Structures are given as structure tokens and as C-alpha cells.
């Protein structure tokens, strides 16, 4: 493992960033000293955060390795400062133990920490149950059917009832397909002005309510991915107060963007869960403050250029985020909630949700970290991205902060 001496760096220790100091990174750990001749790096006062954990990773391999590969994803994670992630692919349902083993083998070569969600139905079809017991025994940390709508309520009941034997959490992106009805964007004043088919908030809340009732009935823990509106958070709070074990995350882009971006008709803003109104965006921030929201997710979803370089409605939904997430969100997030909560939302809580030991910086301990120059803006350019995709709504925009480098499980990556 390469070693590195960081000079003039401010590590996040015991809930705060210390004064500029020297960190000796030896064999993946924060050591007291480094062997002679260890390369040195002047961090110029950059922050050293515990490396992040990404919720919602989809690297497309094996069935769509023409779009993106696991290797691309790992490279993106190192560039973005992620030590691990929760993997769930829309292209490759992990619906049997062989598929799980194959993904685990891919992951094991990466030097990063991956957790996998198993599918609860074969092929995400909501028709035949996946072998959830075997998946759980093989290491699946929870169950989810990608971003598919679990609107076949009886099947949902049976899947959760059967899956309850594993004690694992069920993950859902709550969106009722019938109410969605080919909509791609939030149903609001922007979609109505543009004449675009909208997805009403009730498509989310009705789906969420159905799942919460099921969770209450069956006593199964559930998680909502990419909650996009304040009403869903109220449902979560109410259910939680009544004893339902429910957690939720919000997507990084939903904290940064709202449906006013639709007027640009940028196909990069076509994402599976639509950007909702400015009021909803504010409600999500309040959900972070009140701790109704457990974690911030990244939902890294590569889409080929030719599938985004079309008009909005014909674009394939999805956005990549690993390379830009921290630079985009750190300043607004730490500015509003404080550095400790920001680290919790981006690193500690997502890892805990996936059952992975979170990264932490302690002298003598493992040191997976990301260096961030929080006051140096950076422009989002195609060269920042691993692989051949660069489908982010932030392309061409300026991020308030810049990632300088990462040191993850002993691998140094300069950005």
C-alpha cells in the first residue's frame, strides 16, 4: 500500500475539524510517523473528511457494460471520495445467489466496501418471489426491486411477509406507476406552463402510505429512497411515532435543484424521481434538520451521451453523481447543518443503513479520507468523470468546493 504524508491538513476528528496539522498515512492507517522517503503532499489547509458512503449505486455491469463498468464506478468513487456504497442495479436485478456472488467477486477486487440489495421479485417483475433467504445468507443487506413500483399490493404483502424471516430492511422508491402515467417531471406550475405530463405528489405519498401500512401490518423495517416531497416526510414521521421502523434518504440533487430548472429543458434534469417544487426542496432540508431523513443518497446512474443528447422527454432518466456530490453539497450542507451533521449524512449514516462500518478518522485507526478545499470553486467538465458518461444536471456549472484527493484503503487518488 502506498504511504503518504499530508501536510497542512485539517482532519475531522471527534466531530470537528482540527487546526492544520500533519497526517502520516501508512498502510491505510493514520500513523504517528511515516517511513523515511514517504512522499509528502501539501494539502494547503484542505479539510480531511472521513470518506463517504454512497447510497444507490448502479454500475450497469454485466448486462449493460456497454454503458458503464464496475471499474468505471470504482474510479468514480475514488475521485469522489467514497469508500463504499450500497449497490442496487436497475439493469441487473440480483435475484439469485449466483448473481449476488458474481457481484461480490467483482466488488472484492475493488478495494472498496460494497453492500448489495437483493431483489424481492424475480427480474423486478413483482410476479415470482426471489430466493430471499438464500440472498440474505449470501450477504444481501436488504431487499429492493430497483426503482420499480411495487403496486401489486398482494404480491408486496407476500414478498415482505416472506422476507420478514430474514430480518432485513425493504427499500422502495415510492412512486405509483398508475398516477405517474408516463409523467417525467413534477406536476406543478412549471410542467403545466410547459405542457409537460407531470407526476403529482400523490403518486409518491399514496405509494409511501401503502408501503407504510404494509410495514406496520407485517412489522417489517422499510426504507424510502429519494423522498422528494414534504408530505412523504410527514407520513414517515407519523408512522415512526406509531412504532413503524421506517428510514428514508433524500437524493443529493433534490437538495440542490427544483422544478424551476425545467424551463431550461435540459435532458440531464430527467431523473427517475422528479425534482419537485422549491417548497418541497425546503421541506427536504427541514427533514435533514429534524432528522426525519436518515441520510443523503447519491443514486449514481450512468446514461450514455446519445441517450441524453436528445430532447428532454426522449432522454433516458438518470444522473451520475459520485464525482460531483461532495463539491456540490458540502458548502450548503455544512453551512446550514454544521460540519458534524454533514459528515453524518454523507458518510456515517449511509454506511450504517447498509450495515457497513463507517469511516472515521482516529490516530492509529484506519484512515479512509477525502481532501476537500471547501472554498475553491470548480467547474464541472467532462474530464472529471470516470467512464464515458457524464450525465449530471451540474455539467458546465460551478461547484462551490473542490475535491483535492482521496486516500481510501491505502490508495491515493489525486483529482
Amino acid at each position, binding site marked *: 500500500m502506498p504511504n503518504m504524508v499530508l501536510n497542512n491538513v485539517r482532519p475531522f476528528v471527534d466531530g470537528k475539524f482540527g487546526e492544520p496539522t500533519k497526517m502520516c498515512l501508512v498502510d491505510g492507517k493514520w500513523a504517528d510517523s511515516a517511513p523515511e522517503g514517504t512522499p509528502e503532499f501539501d494539502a494547503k489547509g484542505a479539510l480531511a473528511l472521513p470518506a463517504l458512503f454512497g447510497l444507490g449505486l448502479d454500475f450497469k455491469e454485466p448486462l449493460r457494460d456497454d454503458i458503464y463498468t464496475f471499474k468505471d464506478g470504482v474510479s468514480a468513487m475514488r475521485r469522489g471520495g467514497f469508500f463504499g456504497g450500497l449497490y442496487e442495479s436497475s439493469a441487473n436485478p440480483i435475484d439469485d445467489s449466483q448473481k449476488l456472488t458474481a457481484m461480490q467477486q467483482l466488488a472484492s477486487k475493488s478495494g472498496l466496501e460494497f453492500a448489495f440489495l437483493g431483489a424481492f421479485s424475480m427480474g423486478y417483475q413483482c410476479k415470482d418471489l426471489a430466493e430471499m433467504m438464500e440472498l440474505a445468507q449470501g450477504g444481501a443487506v436488504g431487499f429492493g426491486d430497483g426503482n420499480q413500483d411495487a403496486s401489486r399490493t398482494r404480491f408486496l404483502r407476500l414478498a415482505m411477509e416472506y422476507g420478514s424471516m430474514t430480518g432485513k430492511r425493504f427499500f422502495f422508491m415510492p412512486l405509483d406507476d398508475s398516477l405517474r402515467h408516463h409523467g417525467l417531471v413534477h406536476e406543478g*406550475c*412549471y410542467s*403545466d406552463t410547459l*405542457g*409537460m405530463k407531470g407526476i403529482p405528489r400523490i403518486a409518491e405519498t399514496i405509494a409511501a402510505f401503502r408501503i407504510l401500512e404494509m410495514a406496520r401490518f407485517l412489522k417489517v423495517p422499510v426504507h424510502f429512497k429519494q423522498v422528494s416531497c414534504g408530505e412523504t416526510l410527514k407520513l414517515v414521521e407519523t408512522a415512526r411515532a406509531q412504532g413503524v421502523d421506517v428510514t428514508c434518504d433524500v437524493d443529493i440533487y433534490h437538495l440542490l435543484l427544483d422544478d424551476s430548472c425545467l424551463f431550461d429543458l435540459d435532458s440531464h434534469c430527467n431523473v427517475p424521481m422528479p425534482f419537485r417544487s422549491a417548497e418541497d426542496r425546503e421541506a427536504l432540508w427541514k427533514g435533514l434538520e429534524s432528522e426525519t431523513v436518515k441520510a443523503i443518497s447519491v443514486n449514481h446512474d450512468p446514461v450514455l451521451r446519445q441517450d441524453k443528447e436528445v*430532447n*428532454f*422527454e*426522449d432522454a433516458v432518466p438518470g444522473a451520475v453523481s459520485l464525482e460531483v456530490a461532495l463539491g456540490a453539497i458540502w458548502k450548503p450542507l455544512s453551512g446550514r447543518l454544521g460540519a458534524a451533521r454533514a459528515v453524518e449524512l454523507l458518510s456515517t449514516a449511509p454506511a450504517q443503513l447498509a450495515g457497513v462500518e463507517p469511516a472515521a478518522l482516529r490516530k492509529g485507526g484506519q484512515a479512509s479520507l477525502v481532501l476537500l478545499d471547501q472554498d475553491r470553486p470548480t467547474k464541472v467538465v467532462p474530464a472529471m468523470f470516470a467512464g464515458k458518461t457524464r450525465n449530471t444536471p451540474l455539467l458546465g456549472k460551478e461547484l462551490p468546493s473542490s475535491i483535492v484527493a482521496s486516500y481510501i484503503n491505502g490508495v491515493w487518488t489525486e483529482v
Partner: protein
Amino acid sequence: MSALEIKHLFGLRGVSKHDIRLILDNAKQFREILERPVKKVPSLRGMTVVNLFFENSTRTRTSFELAEKRLSADTVNFTSSNSSVKKGETLVDTLRNIEAMKIDIVVVRHKGTGVPKFLADNSDAIIVNAGDGAHEHPTQALLDMLTIEEKLGTLEGKNVTIVGDIRHSRVARSNLWGMTTMGAHVTLCGPSTLVPRNTELMDKVTWESDVKKAVKNADAIIALRLQKERMDDALLPSMREYRNTFGITHELLECAKDKVLIMHPGPINRGVELDSEIADGENSVILNQVTNGVAVRMAVLYLLAGGRANA
């Protein structure tokens, strides 16, 4: 010649009063030319216009084609049914291939919102929107405005009521932006499943659910075409009920001014949104709209091409 501030015509939202005035005034001059025995002028001689229609259209495409021919432009028609699009070519590739053939203006119709802007972002050609999804159909609104000005002298202070499927109508959207910019009072009326729910950004118009109230003070009524698919999609129970509640009938017009103009973007579903005797009656200006369509499109093409030539 005064120049347009816009370089392309994507829609009428945000287009200035100056530009709309300029287009309408030019259209009036072209309208006069269309009354002459020789209806052709050499304004666009040497320029090539491609009519890129990804949705079926007879009227609008014919109207544009006539406008182009009367301006002496070379015209090429490109429809999705007989094109490489059927073979899987992307929109950008289609455009770039056409552009490589040295065209100057693209008139585009597409089911996707914002396709004209997308094409402008990816090409050097002048783009004219001939209808994009339910977003905008600016030349239809301009010809509606021209027709009202021709009959009533001005749009300023006039009451224009648009009845029908507002939610899915690009004609209604373009009209509400254009007409309010020109000082008209616009009232929109339709069944609750066919009007937008979120109208905060469309606050310069009046939303009225009672069609009798909506037409009461109208100087012009525009009836929108009702698509049959709306019934299949359970947005309405039947054509019959629609006709009885929102159709423009003699009974309804008893609530309106005697000389109210009756307009329709065509093609008409007779006996649904508009009764035959009204469509063919003395208040109907529907065929004037068709004639004005050619004049307005001539004006748009002429002014946009002129802007490029003067740049």
C-alpha cells in the same frame, strides 16, 4: 426594416410586444400580396427551408410550404414516416445530416416539449416551431391574433375566450402568452380534467369553469379541437357530454355578444367542440384564420431570415 429581437421562434412566452407587433404588421403586408394575381415575392430566393415534421400534419405543413414557396425559398419536406428516424437515427443526427446539406431554416413539429430549442442548441440553422408537444404553437397563435386584429382592429382590451382541452393544447399556451402581451384579456375554460391545475405562472389570464360566464363578454371565442384519445384516457365520459357542456352551440352563443368571432385552429370535430351551423355561420372566421396562417408564416420566415442576413 426593423429587426426581430428573437433569433428563432420557439414560442411566444417571453417574446416582446415589439416582435409580435412587427410580425403582425409584416403579415398584414403579406396578406395584401396574397390577394394579388401574382402571389410570389423574391424575399427568400436562394434560401433553403426544411419542413421537419415528426408528427402528422397536413394543414400546418401545407401552410408553411405555401409561405416558403411564396417567398421563393427552396423547400424540402422531411417527415418521420418516410425518414431515417424510422431506422433509429437520433434527432441530433437527423438534424446534422440535414444541416450538412446547407439548409438555412428548419421548421419543426415534434411531440416533445422543447425540441425546437434543442435543435437550435445543436445547429446553426434558424429554427421555427410548428408545434412541440403541448408546449407551444406560436404561428397558430400569431395567425389567431392577426385574424382578431383584422376583424376588430386591435387586440388591446379585447376579450378572448379559449374553450376546450387547455391542458394538452399548445395553441392555448401560445395564445395566452401572445395575446396577453398584446393587451387582450384572455379567459380559459374547459372541463376540470382538461385544464392545468397549477396556474401560478399563467396568472395574467382568467380561469373560468362555467362556459356561459366564460363567453359572456367575449369578443372572440376560440374552440379547441377535442382529441378522441381523451375519452380513451378517461379524461372525459363522452363526446356527447362534452358537446352538451362545453361545445359552442347556438344555445351557448345566446349568452354571448351578437358579433362574437368564432375561431378554431382546425381540423374541426363538427358537433363536438363546434356545431356545424356555428362553424359555417356568419360569426365564423375560421377560413380567414387559414388564409392568415400563410401570411403570418411568410412574415415569420422573412423576418427571421432577414435578422440573420443583417447580423
